C-alpha cells in the first residue's frame, strides 16, 4: 500500500532579506497546501482538479519528492517517476535520442537499462526522423510526446503527471489513454493533474478537488467533477453579479427583484412520464423538468431557460422558452413551469441542470442574460445505457434512418449523387 500521511503544510517562503533563517519578518508566508491528509491506494489512478494556483502542482511536487513539506510528512512506497513540466531535464542542444539516455541517467537508470527500454520509448513517441534532431527544434507536442513516453516507460510504482496531456493531438491523446490503462493493469499508481475533466472522468478511479490549499472534495470522479463544475458556475455568476452591481441603474430593477427575493426559483425536479420524480432516465425516454417559482409581481414577459451541462462543463443544450415560441405570462404568487423533453437524445452519462428565470430577455443582447434569477443548486440527472448494451453510444443519440440496397447503385434512395466538376 502506498500511503500519504499528513502531507501537511508546504511553505513557499518569499525571499526578501539576507538570511535563510527562520525570522518571520523576513518572509511573507504562503501556504500552498495546508492540512492535507490523504492515503492513496496502490494501483489507483487519482485525478487532481482545481483552479489555477490552488495547490495542485505543489501536491504533485511533494509526491514526487522534489519538494519537502515544511510541516508534516510524505510517505511513498515505491519508485516515483514524475512528469511535472514539459521536457523536464531535456537539454535543448542534445538530440531526442541523446536526451532519452540523459533522462535515464537522471532517473537513476544506466545505459544498459535504458537500452532495453529505448525501443519502447521511441515507438511510443513516434518522432520519426526528428529523433536525431536537437530537442530545441521540436514542437511543443513533440516535446511532450517524448517526455510522456519516457516518464511512463521507465519502471516505476508511482507516476505523477502534471497537466501536460493537453498539448498532444487527438491521436496521441488516444495513445496516452491506452498507456494509462496499461499502467493501471500493471498496478502502477498514478496521480494526474488535469483541467480536462473528460480525461479525469475517463481515466481516474478517484478524484481530488483542491481549492486554496485544502482538499475541497475527495471521491469518485463523477461526484467531485460535478461539485467542482458547480462551484465554477457559481463563481462565474457571482462575478457577473458583482460586475453588474457596479454597472449601474439600468439593471437595477432586475437586481432588486432578485435581491429582495420578490422573484425566486424554489425547486427543480425531474419527472418521469407517469409523473414520478426520478433522477435516472433511459435514452429515448421522456423527461419533464418541473420548476416551482414564486413572484410577488406579475411577469407578463417572463422567459425561462433550462441549460443542461455535462459534468465536464460542456453545455449540451440550452432550452429558452421565447426561442421555442412559448409565451409565459406568469401571474404573481407561486407557480409551476414544466419543460417537457419529449425524448431524451443525450448519450449516457451524468448531466447538471441550471434554470434561469428572466423577467424579460432579449436574445440579441447578451447582457440581458444577466438579469436572470438563476437557480443553481447541484441538481443532476443520469442518462442510462439501454439494458444489455455495453458499447459506447456517444454523446448524442441522433435519430437516423437505415436503408439497405442490393448492388452498388444508391440511386434508389432518390438522392442525386453530385458529380465532380
Amino acid at each position, binding site marked *: 500500500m502506498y500511503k500519504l500521511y499528513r502531507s501537511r503544510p508546504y511553505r513557499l517562503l518569499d525571499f526578501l532579506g539576507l538570511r535563510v533563517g527562520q525570522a518571520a519578518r523576513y518572509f511573507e508566508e504562503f501556504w500552498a497546501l495546508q492540512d492535507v491528509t490523504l492515503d492513496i491506494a496502490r494501483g489507483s489512478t487519482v485525478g487532481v482538479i482545481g483552479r489555477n494556483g490552488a495547490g495542485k502542482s505543489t501536491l504533485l511536487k511533494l509526491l*514526487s519528492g*522534489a519538494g519537502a513539506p515544511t510541516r508534516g510528512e510524505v510517505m511513498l512506497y515505491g519508485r516515483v517517476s*514524475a512528469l511535472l513540466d514539459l*521536457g523536464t*531535464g531535456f537539454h535543448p542542444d542534445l538530440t531526442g535520442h*541523446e536526451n532519452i539516455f*540523459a533522462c535515464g541517467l537522471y532517473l537513476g537508470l544506466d545505459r544498459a537499462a535504458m537500452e532495453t527500454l529505448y525501443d519502447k520509448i521511441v515507438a511510443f513517441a513516434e518522432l520519426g526522423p526528428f529523433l536525431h534532431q536537437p530537442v530545441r527544434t521540436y514542437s511543443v507536442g513533440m516535446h511532450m510526446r517524448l517526455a510522456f513516453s519516457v516518464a511512463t516507460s521507465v519502471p516505476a510504482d508511482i507516476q505523477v503527471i502534471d497537466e501536460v496531456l493537453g498539448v498532444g493531438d487527438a491521436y496521441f491523446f488516444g495513445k496516452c489513454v491506452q498507456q494509462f490503462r496499461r499502467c493501471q493493469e500493471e498496478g502502477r499508481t498514478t496521480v494526474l493533474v488535469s483541467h480536462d475533466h473528460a480525461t479525469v472522468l475517463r481515466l481516474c478511479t478517484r478524484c481530488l478537488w483542491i481549492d486554496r490549499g485544502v482538499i475541497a472534495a475527495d471521491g469518485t470522479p463523477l461526484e467531485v467533477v460535478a461539485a467542482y463544475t458547480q462551484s465554477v458556475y457559481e463563481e462565474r455568476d457571482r462575478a457577473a453579479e458583482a460586475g453588474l452591481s457596479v454597472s449601474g441603474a439600468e439593471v437595477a430593477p432586475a437586481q432588486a427583484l432578485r435581491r429582495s427575493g420578490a422573484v425566486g426559483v424554489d425547486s427543480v425536479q425531474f419527472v418521469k412520464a407517469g409523473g414520478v420524480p426520478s433522477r435516472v432516465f433511459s435514452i429515448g425516454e421522456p423527461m419533464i423538468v418541473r420548476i416551482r417559482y414564486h413572484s410577488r409581481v406579475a411577469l407578463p414577459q417572463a422567459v425561462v431557460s433550462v441549460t443542461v451541462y455535462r459534468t465536464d462543463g460542456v453545455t449540451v443544450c440550452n432550452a429558452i422558452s421565447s426561442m421555442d415560441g412559448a409565451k409565459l405570462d406568469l401571474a404573481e404568487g407561486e407557480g409551476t413551469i414544466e419543460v417537457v423533453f419529449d425524448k431524451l437524445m443525450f448519450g449516457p452519462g451524468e448531466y447538471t441542470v441550471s434554470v434561469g428565470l428572466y423577467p424579460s430577455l432579449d436574445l440579441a443582447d447578451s447582457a440581458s442574460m444577466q438579469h436572470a434569477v438563476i437557480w443553481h443548486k447541484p441538481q443532476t440527472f443520469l442518462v442510462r445505457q439501454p439494458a444489455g448494451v455495453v458499447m459506447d453510444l456517444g454523446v448524442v443519440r441522433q435519430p437516423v434512418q437505415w436503408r439497405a440496397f442490393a448492388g452498388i447503385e444508391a440511386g434508389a434512395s432518390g438522392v442525386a449523387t453530385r458529380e465532380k466538376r
Partner: protein
Amino acid sequence: MNCFHMLFRHRRLIWNLTLLDFRLRYAGSRLGLLWMLLAPLLVLGAYLLLFGGILRVRPDLSSTGLEYGLLIACGLLPWIGFSEGVTRGTASVLAQRNLIKSQVFPMELFPVSAVCAGLIGQLCGILLLLVLLGLQGMLGLNLVLLPFLLILQALFTIGLVWFLSCINIIYRDTSQVVVLMMVLLMFVSPIAYTQEMAPAGLKFVVELNPISYLIEGYRNALLYDQFPNIRKLAIFAGLAFLVLLTGHRYFMRLRRVLPDYV
C-alpha cells in the same frame, strides 16, 4: 566521512554525468572535443607572447623560451582546470533547475561532475605536456605525485563549488562575482611567474593564495622533478579536506530547501 562514501557510491553516476557534461558543452560545435586542447593552447600562446615576448620575463637569465613555456604550462593547466571547475560548478545546480524542481536527484553530484569535467580537460593537457617533457628528457620519479595532486585539487574544488553553487541559487549574483574573483585570483597565482620572482613585500599575497601551493606542487612534480615542500603540501591538503567537509555539510543542510529557490 559520509561525504567520501557518497562520492564513492555514486562514482558511476558521476562519471556518466561528467560525460553528459562534455556532450552538452560541445553539442552543436564543429570542433567539439578539440576545444579541450585548443583553448589552453591559445591561452598558453597568449601568455608566452605577452610575458615571454613583450615583457621578456624569465625565471632566471639562462632559461630559454621553451623552458619558460613549459613553466607557464605547468601553472596554466591546473589553473584552467580549477577555474573552469569553479565557474561551471557554481552555475551547475541552477542550470539543472528543471530537473531539481520535479525529481528526486542527488543534486550534490552536479557540482562534482562539473569539477570532474574541468579536471579531465586539465588531464588531457597534462598528458600532452608529459609527452613534451618526455621528449626533453625532463621527466623524473616525482611524477608519481601527480595523481595525488589531482585528487587534492579535486577535493578542494568540489568543496568550494558545493558551497558556491548553493549560494548561487539563493543569490544569483554569485556566479558573476565568481567570474570576477577568478580573474583577480589568476593574477595572484604564480602562472607566468614563480613564487620566488614576487617581490618580498608582495610575496605574502601569493602565499595567501592556496592555488599557488597547488601550482608549485605541479611544477615540482612535472618540471623540476623535486619532491614538493612537505609543509606547503600539508597545508594545502589540510585546507582541501576542510573545504570539502564544510562544503558538503553546507550543501546537505540546504539541499532540502533548495528546490524552493531554483
